[in-house]
């Protein structure tokens, strides 16, 4: 690969080809994505796993196993066109209810999302069990509290969610651009008094602009 000598260190780091081998071994040994930070911690002083990952990813292009990025972590995953060979390995995931799937999608596309926002979008109250199930599956976790009256908790998707759906990050969600372009990811409060949903404090200012934008033409 490369004989690029070790730099940025007082100590001699192993050659890049060797670093690539090390990253390969570490990532092969685990089912969980490993962050660059952890790779640095486990490899000899002066190593540059970020660079090694670039070479390694290239090496596995088109192979039966791919190197994939999940958030700021990396993992080997089998090529999805070979999934049919792995019938034996299929892990039965719990069947999600329609409510759970919709709730998950709303959290993923609107994150961070409060329960009130989820309810407003779905037009029904969200049962406690639905969010709990998603949290239990480790696809959803609590985000920062919203800085609005009542300081409601927010929900965000996790690295496990990204890993499960083969997403590098939440920006890669399918159809995200189109939804955003259509203005459907804006939190638009109901005009005046409405039973259909609560206005979210922080978005109130944008109210007028949004509406004209969408319905002008």
């Amino acid at each position, binding site marked *: 690969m490369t004989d690029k000598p070790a730099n940025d260190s007082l100590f001699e780091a192993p050659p890049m080809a060797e670093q690539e081998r090390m990253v390969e071994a570490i990532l092969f040994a685990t089912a969980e994505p490993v962050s660059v930070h952890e790779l640095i911690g486990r490899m000899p002083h002066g190593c540059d796993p970020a660079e090694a990952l670039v070479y390694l990813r290239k090496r596995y292009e088109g192979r039966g196993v791919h190197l994939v990025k999940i958030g700021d972590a990396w993992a080997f995953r089998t090529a999805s066109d070979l999934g049919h060979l792995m019938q034996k390995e299929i892990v039965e995931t719990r069947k999600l209810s329609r409510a759970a799937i919709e709730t998950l*999608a709303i959290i993923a596309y609107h994150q961070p999302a409060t329960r009130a926002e989820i309810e407003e979008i779905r037009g029904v109250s969200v049962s406690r069990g639905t969010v709990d199930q998603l949290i239990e599956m480790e696809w959803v976790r609590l985000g920062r509290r919203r800085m609005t009256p009542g300081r409601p908790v927010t929900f965000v998707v996790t690295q496990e969610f990204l890993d499960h759906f083969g997403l590098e990050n939440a920006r890669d969600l399918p159809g995200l651009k189109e939804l955003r372009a259509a203005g459907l990811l804006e939190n638009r409060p109901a005009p005046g008094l409405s039973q259909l949903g609560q206005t979210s404090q922080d978005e109130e200012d944008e109210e007028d602009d949004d509406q004209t934008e969408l319905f002008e033409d």
Partner: protein
Amino acid sequence: MTDSIFQEDVQTVAERQAAEALIVDVGAFEGPLDLLLTLSRTQKVDLRQISILALAEQYLAFVEQAKKLRLELAADYLVMAAWLAFLKSRLLLPPDPSEEGPSGEELAAHLAFQLERLEGMRKAAAKLMARDQLGRDFFARGITEDVQRVRRVTYTATLLDLMQGYARIRTRDDFRPFVMDRDAVMTMEQSLARMRTLIGFAGDWTDIASYLPEGWELDPVKRRSATAATFAASLELAKEGKIEIRQGETFAPIQIRKREPHDR
């Protein structure tokens, strides 16, 4: 049966659509917004071109039908019905300039937005679930190796710790209660017991130093303690009349010998 078909023909479009919607079980809807979205599909137009007025009428007809059939409708369906009736009146009547609040068009536009957004999320959810999934379409490593967590503990101390530690020992030494030195201390009782057994063999004058327990003479601390205890025991034995005791001069060795009973 044929009668009823002819009867249906006389119904208005809205009534027919409401009847169609009713085919779907009410329980299958996830709330009034979901029902509205389902009803809107009967308009067979893009959601952006939907007639909210027509939709409101469809919904109200649905609720009417449900009432006729004595179907139990959840409260939020009825709330929505009331709101749509209000919206319908707003949309039909010419705007009253004295009236406050949003116009019927604004309310309708928002409802259209909500329907479109819900539809958008439904489609997004479907796309998400259609993606290749871990453990179904692609797989993680099957044979994993445990990463051993090696806990390397490095110990540290400061100069202050060192000095305080030393000071602690030295000061403790100075004031250490006598009993703490047990292992280097010989009590008079111990010495007395020892001498009682040994004295029988000591017919001649013997330096009391030779009565020290074996090994104690090597350790200065032990020797000091044993010497004192032996000396005190000697005095006790002399008092009992078991031995005689003598010393040539100041600091000369102290000697003892067994006192024979006939000496009395």
